[in-house]
């Protein structure tokens, strides 16, 4: 493995400005959508007093979860000392910050009173996991910012490992906090489970790495910098492990629920007759988002294809969004159990499955968050030296042996 040289990208091509313009436009449209929602009130959205968190939360929580997962590549390099990941660490830190930024913007702009952000930043109820999350998110920006500085400033390189360790622990706590937003909801049948926190952590590993892989491949393809197969396949194989791990947690979660009769209602709803939620669960989350990617990553027919790796990563991302939709909206659509074992009805939709159709402004706000995150990555890699000049196997793969030598790479 040679010394890695980093440089900013040119960013002068039509393609660069075109893509940046597209993301900018999407972000603007997202902002206008949120302004429309704020000035008219949430009555113009699909949200109701039954489904209080809608599509913006699906995007926001997905981005926030993916953000902490995107930092994993850097952690593997700094904390676990895997040098093959080291050249990717800067992009990993950057992507995690940008995804968090996008997710938080969506979350804040979907508040009933986004103008009161200052209240959220200054008044804390420390028993609220939400309040803790506000501190964890702000801390994440600070710590990962310092972490990037340690990585990018030669004089500071010696602090990379300790700061990277802090960032790693912080991101685990952060995603524990995100999962616990749902885990701590004692009254809801779909939540109230300690497994939510570790499940969200493993989901973050998966979604974050999928997005990282896609951003990496796109950036190197469009800037015509070399990116070796060995690196892509290593990341894709790791992603497969994470996808399988998420699947394991999902199975464990539902199996535990299925054992307890009190949870049969919610399980029947999600797994069998929940309509859109059941469809999303089986077809998108499980089949398209988990099983197909695993096949694309590991079946011999596809395992040496970069296209298959990219398609797999796209599917993991789509499956992740579907999983968030099922957890967040499906979980609310199932009625609260006020009187277990009894039939309840009222004028306030007690005892019935809540109706929710995502509205265009909600969807545009969510997409705006994604666009902001990606636009921020594009701007940052043009401004600073985030990307190695080359990630060709001959440069970046510690196990690389020139083909002429004919010897096997040793682990």
């Amino acid at each position, binding site marked *: 493995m040679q010394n890695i040289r980093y440089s900013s990208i040119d960013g002068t091509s039509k393609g660069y400005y075109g893509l940046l313009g597209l993301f900018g436009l999407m972000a603007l449209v997202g902002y206008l959508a949120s302004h429309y929602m704020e000035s008219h009130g949430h009555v113009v959205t699909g949200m*109701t007093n039954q489904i209080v968190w809608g599509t913006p939360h699906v995007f926001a929580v997905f981005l926030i979860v993916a953000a902490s997962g995107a930092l994993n590549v850097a952690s593997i390099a700094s904390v676990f000392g895997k040098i093959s990941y080291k050249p990717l660490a800067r992009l990993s830190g950057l992507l995690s910050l940008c995804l968090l930024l996008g997710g938080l913007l969506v979350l804040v702009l979907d508040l*009933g009173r986004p103008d009161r952000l200052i209240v*959220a930043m200054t*008044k804390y109820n420390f028993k609220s996991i939400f309040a803790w999350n506000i501190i964890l998110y702000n801390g994440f920006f600070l710590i990962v910012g310092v972490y990037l500085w340690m990585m990018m400033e030669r004089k500071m390189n010696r602090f990379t490992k300790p700061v990277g360790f802090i960032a790693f622990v912080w991101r685990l706590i952060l995603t524990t906090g995100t999962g616990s937003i749902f885990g701590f909801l004692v009254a809801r049948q779909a939540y109230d489970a300690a497994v939510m926190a570790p499940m969200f952590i493993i989901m973050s590993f998966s979604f974050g790495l999928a997005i990282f892989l896609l951003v990496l491949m796109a950036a190197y393809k469009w800037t015509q910098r070399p990116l070796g197969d060995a690196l892509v396949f290593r990341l894709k194989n790791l992603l497969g492990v994470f996808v399988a791990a998420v699947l394991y947690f999902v199975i464990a979660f539902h199996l535990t629920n299925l054992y307890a009769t009190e949870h049969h209602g919610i399980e029947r709803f999600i797994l069998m007759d929940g309509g859109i939620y059941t469809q999303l669960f089986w077809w998108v989350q499980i089949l398209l988002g988990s099983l197909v990617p695993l096949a694309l990553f590991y079946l011999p027919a596809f395992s040496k294809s970069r296209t298959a790796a990219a398609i797999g990563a796209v599917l993991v991302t789509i499956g992740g969004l579907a999983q968030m939709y099922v957890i967040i909206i499906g979980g609310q659509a199932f009625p609260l159990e006020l009187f277990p074992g009894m039939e309840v009805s009222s004028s306030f939709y007690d005892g019935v499955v809540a109706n929710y159709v995502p509205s265009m402004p909600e969807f545009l706000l969510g997409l705006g968050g994604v666009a902001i995150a990606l636009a921020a990555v594009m701007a940052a890699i043009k401004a600073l030296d985030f990307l190695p000049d080359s990630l060709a196997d001959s440069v970046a793969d510690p196990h690389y042996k020139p083909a002429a030598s004919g010897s096997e790479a040793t682990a």
Partner: protein
Amino acid sequence: MNPEKMTQESGAQEQPNSNRRQFLGTAAAALGGLSIAPGVLLYSVSHAKPADQPVTDAVRWGMLVDTSKCEDGCNDCVTACNEEHALTDTGRPETDAQWIRKLTVKDRLSGNSKSMPMMCQHCEHPPCVDVCPTGASFKRADGIVLVDKHICIGCRYCMMACPYKARSFIHEEIKDQKVEAPRGKGCVESCTLCVHKVDRGDGTTACAEACAKAGHRALIFGDLNDPNSEISQRLKKFGATQIRADLGLNTGVRYQGL
């Protein structure tokens, strides 16, 4: 200057003078009224907690719902609450606020059916207060759970956390509010146990009043800490249940006849 215009202007000048006279008259009447009002007001609040004294935990306000007296089809408590707090029907029931609602609870096995009101249960350990990031959801020392509309950011986490579906999010602009019940678009709200009436010394809530007026007396409001109050006496004699007692929230609203 054009004479015609001059006349118009002088005419226009006269108008404020007559307005001023009218205003002075109204002001005099208002001042007179104000000088009498405190006496009238003092009389009506003689049983209330003085405004300059903090709420204490010497009392715990609560409500008893006797489901055997609650009539199926009667909606008087809901109507009274809506009137008291100016909760209007916009024709969009999925987003309209409901502070109190009538539930029909039916036993699947026997078919036995009961009617009862459901509202904020004013828990001793309210999940909405636990999860609120800013502390806007809070519990008063006297047990009433409220939302501070000044610091509610509209995150709706309390609505996710409430086991009773007691809270509503204000989805649109509110018109014709009442001063006793300030509400605001983008904030969350719920039953206040008629805190304005309680603090005024009315000793009851709009829903309980309406229920009594209809002759049912299915709703009994009172001090759970006072062993001699009607609510305490009846709870002691007949017992009562909490909805979702398994959550251990020690609700201030109790149900008889479930």
